[in-house]
């Protein structure tokens, strides 16, 4: 009898423990919801309220100018994505040094890049927000949803006006940069990374193996036909001289990079996508155009001939890297030479190839503005201090400090007054990028700061700079970023782009690798129309017109 009683007691205890555990987790979201509803009211209201609060602190704690930013140490929670090359942010030299200067302690809660996308969405959905989003890659659709829509991101217009003199100055001098950062409601929700250096004006640069060319006694190709001849020679004549046919004439990294050569066919890369914009500001998606078909026929030919990397569509980055460091690619497209430093001297940049219609054009331009790098939540405990914290990196001095660290300790100025890293960093055993990742967040990019020609050397070697300089004259005169659209239209954009991009990636890959013949072209165009390619074009057209 006694044993039975004990058993019953244990069961009861187990049951109680279980429900108690649940009660806690069950109650929490409800509490959040009530605070959530309070905050939700109006976007403007909550941000101005937050400013009032900080205004109260200002008199006692915040310094309007200079360092430290606050007299008494404050702590801000920071959420963000850590690149694999970066050390833990709290151990990062620049971050540690900056904490001493500003008196603001950043409580970093960074998430590895793997699985970051899910983590970010769940963070917003649970509405347990940090003070600051850093390196969170908040894209335009997310700004529409979580900024304009749910008001979880704070409107920064007034804060920039008041507490970010450096950024304000850049925006005043380049109004296009300000509009690039605006959401559909005309407000700014995120602070960008701004790159005004020459190498930052384009993404991909084109490279060709000049050592192989020399071995074969060939010239740098100038037209697409010559290009093919060179690739054939790379394939057949064993330019690396190891007696094996292991050369890969043309290295394209992944399905999304097959458009790099499209400029020769006059295919633009406006909105960082498959768009052209004419002088009247009329946008056009060229996925169904005949010239794109011809471009695909050319690539299909290269693929069938074994000139294009046969595995390119598998998104296999490790394989790509090992080919790169093994110097197996003849020609390729890369933004910077940092991943093939070991054989960098064998490659050099060259002018855009002349296409079948005599076009000489490098399409892969950028606005120099990468939005979504830094944002404040509507529950940020001290928006003014947070804004002052980030603004320093938009000054020349701050930009240099972020990119290179401390003069004497990590870098020195050379005879041209350009910063150069110390040898122990440049030739670090663990690799330059890993060594750099202990100093700052340059590896992986996406940090809110200003990069100019003087500080560009942190990622761009002299060869990269040269390669960029050769291509620069052939860039489009005006470059547009993808415009923000209203919250209702965002639903449409996401729905269409989801289907469109999936179908495009699949179809383009199949055309190139020969899985589909070009008799399927009409069917392909019809499908794109059906998915809504023109409706999407119309939405973007309206959004671009609205910016003017």
């Amino acid at each position, binding site marked *: 009898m006694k044993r039975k009683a004990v058993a019953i007691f244990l069961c009861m205890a187990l049951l109680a423990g279980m429900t108690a555990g649940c009660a806690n987790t069950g109650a929490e979201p409800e509490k959040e919801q009530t605070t959530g*509803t309070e905050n939700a009211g109006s976007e403007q209201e909550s941000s101005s309220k937050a400013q009032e609060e900080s205004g109260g602190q200002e008199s006692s704690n915040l310094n309007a100018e200079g360092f430290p930013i606050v007299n008494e140490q404050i702590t801000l929670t920071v959420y963000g994505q850590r690149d694999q090359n970066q050390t833990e942010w709290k151990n990062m030299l620049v971050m540690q040094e900056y904490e001493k200067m500003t008196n603001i302690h950043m409580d970093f809660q960074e998430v590895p890049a793997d699985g970051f996308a899910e983590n970010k969405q769940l963070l917003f959905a649970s509405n347990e927000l940090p003070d600051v989003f850093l390196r969170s890659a908040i894209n335009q659709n997310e700004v529409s949803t979580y900024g304009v829509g749910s008001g979880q991101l704070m409107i920064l217009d007034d804060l920039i006006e008041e507490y970010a003199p450096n950024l304000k100055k850049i925006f005043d001098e380049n109004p296009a940069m300000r509009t690039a950062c605006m959401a559909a409601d005309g407000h700014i929700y995120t602070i960008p990374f701004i790159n005004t250096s020459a190498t930052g004006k384009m993404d991909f640069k084109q490279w060709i193996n000049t050592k192989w060319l020399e071995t074969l006694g060939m010239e740098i190709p100038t037209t697409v036909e010559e290009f093919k001849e060179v690739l054939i020679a790379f394939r057949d004549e064993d330019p690396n001289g190891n007696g094996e046919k292991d050369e890969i004439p043309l290295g394209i990294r992944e399905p999304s990079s097959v458009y790099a050569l499209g400029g020769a066919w006059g295919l633009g890369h406006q909105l960082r996508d498959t768009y052209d914009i004419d002088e009247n500001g009329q946008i056009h998606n060229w996925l169904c155009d005949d010239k794109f078909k011809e471009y695909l026929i050319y690539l299909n030919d290269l693929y069938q001939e074994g000139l294009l990397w046969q595995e390119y569509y598998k998104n296999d980055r490790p394989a790509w890297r090992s080919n790169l460091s093994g110097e197996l690619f003849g020609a390729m497209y890369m933004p910077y030479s940092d991943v093939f430093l070991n054989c960098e001297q064998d490659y050099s940049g060259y002018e855009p190839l002349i296409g079948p219609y005599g076009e000489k054009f490098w399409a892969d331009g950028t606005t120099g503005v990468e939005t979504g790098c830094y944002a404040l939540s509507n529950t940020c405990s001290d928006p003014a201090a947070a804004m002052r914290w980030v603004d320093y990196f938009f000054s020349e001095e701050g930009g240099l400090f972020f990119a290179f660290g401390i003069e004497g300790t990590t870098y020195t100025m050379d005879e041209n007054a350009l910063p150069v890293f110390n040898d122990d960093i440049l030739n670090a055993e663990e690799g330059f990028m890993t060594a750099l990742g202990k100093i700052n967040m340059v590896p992986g990019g996406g940090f809110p700061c200003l990069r100019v020609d003087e500080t560009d050397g942190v990622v761009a070697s002299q060869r990269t700079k040269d390669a960029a300089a050769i291509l620069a004259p052939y860039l489009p005169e005006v470059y547009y970023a993808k415009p923000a659209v209203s919250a209702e239209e965002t639903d449409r954009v996401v729905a269409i782009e989801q289907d469109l991009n999936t179908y495009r990636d699949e179809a383009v890959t199949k055309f190139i690798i020969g899985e589909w013949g070009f008799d399927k072209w009409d069917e392909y165009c019809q499908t794109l129309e059906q998915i809504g390619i023109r409706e999407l074009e119309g939405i973007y057209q309206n959004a671009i017109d609205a910016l003017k």
Partner: protein
Amino acid sequence: MQNKIKKLGKSIRKNIGLYVMLAIPLAWYIIFKYIPMYGLQIAFRRFNPTLGITQSPWVGLTYFKQFFDSYYFWDILWNTVSLSLFTMLVGFPMPIVLALIINEIKNLKFKKAIQNITYMPNFLSVVVIVSMLTLFSNRDYGLFNKITGLFGCAPVDFMSKPGYFQPLYVFSNVWQYMGFNAIIYIAALSGVDQELYEAASIDGATRMQKIIHISLPCIMSTIIVLFIMRIGNLMSVGFEKVYLMQNSVTLSASEVISTFIYKNGIQKGQFSYSTAVGMFNSVINFILLVSANFVSKKTTKTGLW
């Protein structure tokens, strides 16, 4: 009525220990399976995190419509159904056959060895299985191409051909789970009365006849119950394996509802939309389960309830 309640109360008092034990799984189901269902309402709302689940504005069937209107709707639906059916048609009978074979082995050591070897792959992680598949199907040095090469076939990159996606998925599944799924049938077979076999032997039945007329009918009810349960899960193909195996070339054959939900809902933050898609999936599962059970009860008199 009152009498009934009184009776129940009395029986509870008498067997309090049993009822407390029953309460634990019951509470588990209510708390973890039924209460979270209130979140399903966001399929009909435009979910806004600051307003929360219960305050977001109603939008009716907008998200269902968006899914049905999507260009990929029929593809995804077809892929999900065909992959599941294929997996079931091939994957369901295999463990039964294996169990019958193992049951016929008289040498105990050999029997145990076979059983162990066939169920070992069950413990491999899906990631490992998919890496193995990738290596095996490589065009230049893969095992599959080495074998087909012996018969003079041209090398094929199996992972990049939509047509090979389903066979690769299904047969690797059979290989991995066959042994483990056979355990339950082996257990059922060991419960079969030996006298039946003896009687059959006296009547001069061959081995094959014994299998067909004794072993199979004796485990039929187990087979049917497992079959109905499988049908209830028909639309829920394993997410991880499909997701790991797919690439942009095979998407036309490999995009299924669960991977679609993951990409749209979790990665792109369209929670309302993906809840609607998930709900659609569950409703179809539910309908299939109920109808399968109905048919089974009509025809074989065995059913889940």
